[in-house]
């Protein structure tokens, strides 16, 4: 069972929910932080890091001597990462998405596989929780190759919770694709609702069942509740706005470890997810 915790809007409580969910599940669980641009799960979990590896993405390396100027590589590249100007084969590695199309179509074998560092991934452990996250190299714009690498750490057995980046762009899709359930964390404000709708559209396109957690649920308006009802998406949990929760968060404490009450609530949330994912 793989559950991705996502949200359209940032700062709604994805990490609060993801860490608490992982802590409340009594079986062994994987907790993967796929928000590789700003990973923060480790700040709450304090895992012992056992392994680190540098991750590279493919970029084309060209042999000018072999190029016959046919431009098949130029035609296949959707990102203008390679061009032939005059007699010169020119590459723009920062635009390359690493699809290896140029390598495949080149009839002269003028293009070989080079690598660019996109970041690092780390694996660690705390108690029954197996932890993994990615750290995008500063200055790197391409998060998906690193997110895929973090997700490769999942074995088929057991439960995996993925903390996704905010938004609905490529990194988010990479963190959601192929999972069993998406938990969308939102807040009951016009901003929260606006971005929730975008996230729901993406999840529907991917064909994944989803449910909603409303954070700071006693603020704002009824827009999110009305929308959820209208769309037939279950609201699986509500977390009220509370000074105590905020204070503990600011001290890096996990909500489910603050009181048995919250642990039970998150254990109950996982039971609901299991039912919804089976539908």
């Amino acid at each position: 069972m793989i559950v991705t915790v996502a949200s359209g809007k940032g700062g709604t409580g994805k990490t609060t929910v993801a860490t608490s969910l992982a802590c409340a599940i009594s079986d062994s669980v994987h907790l993967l932080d796929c928000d590789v641009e700003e990973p923060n799960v480790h700040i709450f979990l304090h895992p012992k890091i056992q392994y680190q590896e540098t991750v590279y993405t493919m970029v084309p390396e060209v042999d000018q001597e072999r190029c016959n100027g046919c431009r098949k590589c130029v035609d296949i590249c959707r990102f203008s990462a390679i061009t032939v100007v005059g007699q010169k084969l020119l590459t723009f590695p920062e635009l390359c998405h690493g699809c290896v199309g140029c390598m495949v179509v080149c009839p002269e074998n003028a293009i070989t596989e080079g690598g660019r560092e996109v970041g690092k991934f780390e694996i660690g452990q705390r108690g029954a929780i197996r932890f993994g996250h990615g750290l995008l190299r500063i200055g790197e714009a391409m998060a998906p190759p690193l997110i895929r690498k973090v997700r490769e750490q999942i074995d088929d057995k057991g439960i995996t919770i993925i903390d996704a980046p905010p938004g609905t762009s490529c990194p988010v899709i990479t963190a959601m694709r192929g999972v069993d359930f998406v938990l969308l964390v939102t807040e009951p404000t016009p901003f929260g609702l606006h971005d929730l709708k975008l996230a729901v559209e993406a999840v529907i396109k991917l064909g994944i069942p989803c449910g909603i957690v409303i954070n700071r649920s006693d603020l704002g308006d009824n827009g999110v509740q009305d929308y959820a009802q209208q769309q037939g998406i279950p609201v699986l949990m509500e977390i009220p706005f509370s000074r105590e929760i905020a204070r503990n968060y600011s001290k890096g404490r996990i909500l489910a470890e603050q009181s048995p009450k919250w642990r039970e609530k998150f254990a109950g949330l996982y039971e609901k997810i299991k039912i919804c994912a089976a539908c």
Partner: protein
Amino acid sequence: MKIAVTSTGTDLQSAMDPRFGRARYILIVDTETMEVEVMDNEKNVQSFKGAGIQAATAVADMGAEVLLTGYCGPNAFKTLNAGGIKVVQDVAGTVQVAVANFTNGNLTYSEEPNREGHW
């Protein structure tokens, strides 16, 4: 000599388009005969990435030796360089006046792009 000028329209009286990669038209002007070849750049105006690289490749294919434009980014500049095309940036006004200024020697070639890359 053929020179490329970014333009909002298809003739010499048109105002220049300050953008290079996403210029509406690029006019290839023969400085001896003042004959104009029109390159419709619509495809690059709409492209979501690499407009400068594509436009620079196209300008090189048209056989231009010089480009007159407003702004040019680093990827376009690199591509134009590789194609042996000299670049003059911060040029404005009509295409005709720009070409006249160039042939009279009033314009100086740019050493580096005057715009940063963007995502």
